[in-house]
């Protein structure tokens, strides 16, 4: 349960709470004045279910809260609610996310701005609860926007951003915020909760315009089409995804203006990169142990190392990533996911980053790491090993060439 922490000083735009990532998301649902949310229990998404239910029970939130008979119905419910003009929220985790897969695909196809969280969790089998990003990443080609949060605060902030970007008519695509199971969803942290007035300044009312399914606006959505129509529809979705980059930039600028948070770039969070020769890049909470390692290794060994954290995987901020990473001698890509049989047996992020840099005349050496699967902690010796290998690669001393390195796995 969220414990109210007395603010040190009164603020006109926010109060503080000690809250988990799930509770922070529930606060965002309240602040966004969501009309319909659908739920079905699966850890770690169930944390949001419980937190939202508590807000409703305590009279703090008014939302149509529908507990579905399964994840497929859960996602269909919000898709349909969205089509009739409701602001919606939904979410799931791991194989629950996969059970909803058909509904997830059609939501993006239909350009309905559903906001979801994917509480990242290892896919069964074997049944496991810990974080892995393959659930979210499975939808990477479908037209969902995919940001990843590092902290409970960022989870709340990204959720508010998500409705604004998703519902923008230039985009009108669904968003699934990646939240690392346990480390983010179930850990409490001090979170600044914005006031309603401040949020209202940032987030306009949802308006589907002439796409609203209503008796006064007779339309048919999702008719069957054939080869004479489909390619144009896909190209429209492609254009919407391209538009999303600019809309995210706009939203980020406004968010910073109103709330004073969000960092320099909407897409990348750079840590100690100014003088760095070697960096690692990854998504979500793995940045936390890596930052500890950077401070320690800089102090102990004077290594010029840093971190780039990718905040949006879709749309992939190619320009920003290229501009940032081409400054370094070597880049270690840490995937908390796998892509069995992929080029060089690397993870999903590795191959995306490698592809983004391919056309650059000057490009860093790229090293693939797979770490922290199934929620395994990235401990300091592992972080050290990752930096040592990346440093060696920068000098051309790393054995194994392009082979992907599994970190912390028992031989």
């Amino acid at each position, binding site marked *: 349960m969220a414990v109210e922490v007395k603010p040190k000083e009164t603020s006109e735009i926010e109060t503080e709470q000690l809250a988990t990532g799930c509770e922070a998301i529930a606060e965002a649902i309240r602040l966004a004045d969501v009309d319909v949310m659908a739920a079905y229990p699966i850890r770690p998404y169930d944390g949001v279910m419980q937190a939202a239910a508590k807000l409703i029970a305590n009279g703090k939130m008014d939302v149509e809260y529908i507990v579905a008979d399964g994840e497929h119905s859960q996602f269909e419910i919000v898709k349909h609610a969205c089509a009739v003009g409701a602001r919606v929220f939904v979410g799931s985790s791991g194989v629950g996310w996969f059970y909803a897969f058909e509904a997830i695909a059609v939501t993006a196809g*239909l350009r309905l701005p559903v906001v979801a969280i994917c509480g990242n969790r290892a896919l069964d089998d074997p049944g496991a609860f810990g974080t892995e990003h393959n659930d979210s990443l499975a939808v990477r080609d479908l037209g969902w926007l995919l940001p990843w949060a590092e902290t409970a605060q960022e989870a709340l902030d990204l959720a508010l951003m998500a409705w604004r970007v998703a519902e923008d008519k230039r985009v009108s695509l669904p968003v699934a915020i990646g939240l690392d199971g346990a480390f983010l969803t179930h850990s409490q942290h001090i979170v600044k909760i914005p006031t309603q007035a401040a949020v209202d300044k940032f987030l306009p009312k949802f308006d589907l315009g002439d796409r609203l399914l209503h008796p006064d606006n007779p*339309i*048919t959505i999702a008719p069957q089409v054939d080869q004479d129509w489909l390619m144009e529809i896909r190209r429209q979705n492609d254009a919407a995804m391209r538009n999303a980059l600019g809309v995210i930039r706009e939203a980020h600028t406004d968010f910073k203006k109103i709330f004073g948070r969000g960092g320099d770039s909407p897409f990348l969070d750079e840590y100690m990169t100014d003088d760095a020769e070697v960096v690692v890049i990854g998504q979500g909470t793995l940045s936390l142990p890596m930052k500890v390692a950077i401070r320690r290794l800089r102090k102990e060994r004077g290594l010029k190392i840093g971190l780039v954290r990718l905040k949006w995987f879709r749309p992939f901020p190619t320009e920003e990533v290229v501009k940032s990473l081409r400054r370094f001698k070597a880049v270690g890509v840490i995937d908390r996911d796998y892509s069995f049989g992929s080029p060089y047996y690397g993870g999903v992020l590795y191959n995306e980053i490698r592809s983004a840099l391919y056309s650059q005349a000057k490009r860093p050496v790229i090293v693939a790491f797979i770490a922290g699967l199934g929620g395994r902690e990235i401990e300091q010796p592992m972080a050290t090993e990752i930096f040592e290998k990346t440093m060696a690669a920068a000098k051309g001393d790393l054995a194994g060439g392009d082979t992907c390195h599994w970190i912390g796995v028992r031989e």
Partner: protein
Amino acid sequence: MAEDRSVSIEVVYRGIFQKTLAQRICRSVVLAARKKGHTGTAFARYGDSPERNGVPAKQFAVVAADELELEASMAKYEPSVVDVSIAVDDTLVKGVESWAWYGRQPIWKPVRANGWLLVTSDKKPAEVLAQTDAAERPYTLGIVPGGASFAGLWVYKDDHTDFRVLGALAKILPQWIALDDAKAASLELAKGDRSAVASVQVGYDSTEMRPVKLGEGTSGHEVLQFTKPGWTTMRPGIIVEARKPGERNPYYKKYGARTMRPVVNFDTCIKCTMCWLDCPDECFEVTPEGHYEVVYEACIGCGICAQVCPVKDCIVMVDELKFTDNKDKWQLWKQDHATYNAWFEDMSGVSADPKKGAAGSVPPNANPAANPTTSAGGDE
């Protein structure tokens, strides 16, 4: 595609009702040509599946000199140009509007210059030509003797329409299908029944050929063509404008599915609402007097109205080729009962006055949906 290297044939047929027939014709073409050493492919148009009752559909046979030549015809939905188009119901010459298509095509649209349009019909070439869109290229109209052969999806009315058509093809394409090869293939397909060979010979001997010159035919049919929008002009979100209450679809009319149409005797109508209630396509409009007039642009000719009408000869199903337009007829009746009734009698062959009885011989209702007992053939 070089004519001497390959040949493309299409069969235009009534969806579901003639699916098996179309498939048998296309397969027999490939199998007969194979006897000469040619290779080939037979396939149905993907966009027609799943077929709709009576809605025009197409199947194809492409025969080529060798596998390399055939590749140009593979991985295609349909040939853009055919050498021969075969309509296995003569009412199809009024145009083809498939359910996955956009608008109405003249029946000869894919037929190359100096190609062939074969139509199975009991009518004279002139009668069929009078309902065919005016030719934009010269072609030859061939009438293969015999009425439309209807059968359900799972049964086949084995009246040898397929073998007669194969005989006609052997006549016009001897370099691809030799008469003897057609006979040998038919014997195999008929599992040794020698009457199939005789039917091939009938098709070969009796198909009446009528060269059609540029401009011959009718210009009375509705032009129904649409431009497909690009991605920048399409409505986002996979949205199409819905029809408003009472409004009919201007893009997809459905009347091309019709082999017969209902005509109504307004004088004997008792305004019982049965036709209006049971019409699956909501074709009937209520007149100010409470009669029910048929909107022919929306009617698929299923015949249900004629079946449910409790008054004898009040709604009569009539051969579609007798009509040249889709105009509603109630206005004519309202202006002048006598003229309308004379028209009704001429078209339907029954008396408008119930006391007088039949004015002529009433043709059996050939529509399979309206008269299902006549459509059941033997099991294939």
